[in-house]
């Protein structure tokens, strides 16, 4: 076991290696692990949805959370962005426990996090420009010109500059996702969470959105967290994959490593998703 790491047990006895923040206590922004989720529990009434999840999310990388429907992906996402409060456990972002934050302290931290919702969640009463300018108008004292420049810069860098005065309803699904990403990135965001960003999109638009996620990561250096069950997408974009299975972590690591050790529910999930057995076998052989 590497120094400063601990191993916890996940679903069906799976071994999950966790890092310690101690080494980077003084310079948390240099820690390769951006978010540490530790023993997270969440229940709704009698229904225990998150059953003590623990895993790491790596800085400046694309971290994909996958799992079958009902495995707790969306519930986990809502705890990460603090749309809900967990029953117990920690979400350490740069060493700060998000679950303990309230009011203005939480709002301040939220500004460093962006969220791209499944259906983009653009404000349909506003134009594309106003949607992207919204966080700047709410949280900064920038002049009109500065806002215009920054918004147009983000829109143009994501290839949708020409659509600035259109309403969200006039845009295709892929363009809406781009606007949502631009809106999430406009406030110097460090962490960007995508909730099933390719659901309901055609294969070409799916590829475009995948490219967009990589682009946001490489251009702006953000830590991306992608919640998905689109396996083809996962293998295209993921630096790290965490497999959730009914409220527990079944496996976590780089995709190639996971493919080598495929077994149990994850094997079934990968096969059922249509990813060819040849690819899995090739990955196992290290090719």
């Amino acid at each position, binding site marked *: 076991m590497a120094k400063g790491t601990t191993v916890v047990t996940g679903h069906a006895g799976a071994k999950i290696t966790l890092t310690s923040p101690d080494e980077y206590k003084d310079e948390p922004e240099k820690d390769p692990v951006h978010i540490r989720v530790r023993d997270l529990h969440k229940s709704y009434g009698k229904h225990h949805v998150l059953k003590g999840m623990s895993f790491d999310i790596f800085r400046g990388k694309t971290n994909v959370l996958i799992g079958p429907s*009902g495995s707790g992906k969306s519930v986990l996402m809502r705890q990460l962005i603090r*749309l809900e409060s967990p029953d117990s456990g920690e979400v350490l972002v740069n060493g700060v426990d998000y679950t303990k934050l309230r009011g203005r302290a939480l709002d301040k931290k939220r500004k460093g996090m962006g969220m791209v*919702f499944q259906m983009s969640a653009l404000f*349909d009463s506003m134009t594309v420009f106003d949607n992207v300018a919204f966080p700047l108008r709410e949280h900064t004292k920038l002049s009109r010109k500065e806002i215009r420049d920054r918004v147009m810069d983000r829109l143009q860098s994501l290839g949708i500059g020409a659509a600035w005065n259109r309403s969200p309803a006039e845009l295709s699904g892929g363009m809406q996702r781009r606007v949502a990403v631009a809106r999430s990135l406009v406030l110097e965001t460090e962490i960007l969470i995508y909730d099933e960003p390719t659901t309901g999109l055609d294969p070409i638009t799916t590829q475009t959105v995948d490219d967009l996620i990589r682009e946001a990561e490489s251009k702006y250096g953000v830590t991306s967290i992608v919640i998905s069950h689109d396996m083809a997408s996962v293998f295209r974009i993921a630096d790290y994959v965490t497999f959730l299975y009914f409220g527990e972590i079944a496996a976590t690591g780089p995709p190639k490593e996971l493919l080598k050790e495929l077994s149990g529910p994850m094997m079934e999930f990968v096969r059922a998703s249509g990813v060819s057995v040849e690819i899995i076998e090739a990955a196992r052989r290290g090719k």
Partner: protein
Amino acid sequence: MTDAAAAVDGEEDAPTAPPTDSGNVEEEEAAPSFLTVVTDKFFAFLLAPFVEIGMLARMLFEVIYWGFRPPYRARLMIQSMEFVGVGSIFIVSLTGLFLGAVLGLQLADGFRQFNAENQTGAVVGMAMTREIGPVFTALMVSSRAGSAITTELGSMRVSSQIDALTTMAVNPVQYLIVPRVFAGLIMVPLLTTLFVIIGMFGAYTVCVHLLGIDPGVFMDRFRWLVDWKDVLQGLIKAAVFGVTVTLVACRQGFHAKGGAAGVGAATNRSVVQNAIAILALDYLLTSIILGQV
């Protein structure tokens, strides 16, 4: 997001029963008996109004709390006032005109049976300022603006736009609900004033020009019976109704769930609850103002 909203969402997101390692679904709890189900539903039905009142009280508290905290979004307030107030002028004027006319017609006919038709202006004026003006204005605003508010907020809820506001560190109660409730508080009394003026015009036209009542007598009797206390009573009611109508509409939309059908159901509940709330509050306020409680 409020805890209540979170709880609602949580119920929506909660996954189904997990399978065990062997792949079988975990053994479910024994089904409750028919009697238990009926009893639970009966008590839930009885408690529902109190739960609703509690939720509304909580939301009102949040509106007051966030209403006094910066940032003050004047532009949103004006937009909401335009939507709730200016947008309702036509329907309120039309309703006021016909209601005043028919009231004049009925009362003049009734009073004529004992030769008291000269009192029509006074009674129409009192009824309009104290009761009919605020109640009908609120009902009209609820039908037009309240239902639209519920639909808009409900659509925002089910398409995650309200969650998006929260993730952008913007309080959705302060951004979405405070301006609308403020608009209700200011605009419903103004619309009520308009309703009463146009209603009196309708009654005057019918009574004077169709039924031949003397215009001087009609106005004199009106001035003799209706004083500022009556007007104030009507305006207080209108302000309370304005807050109630927008608050109920916002609450239903804000906590809508279940896609398009859920938004439709929330809009339906909003209109029904508002109608009941306006009439029940009208009785309560009248009792308090007249010192009958």
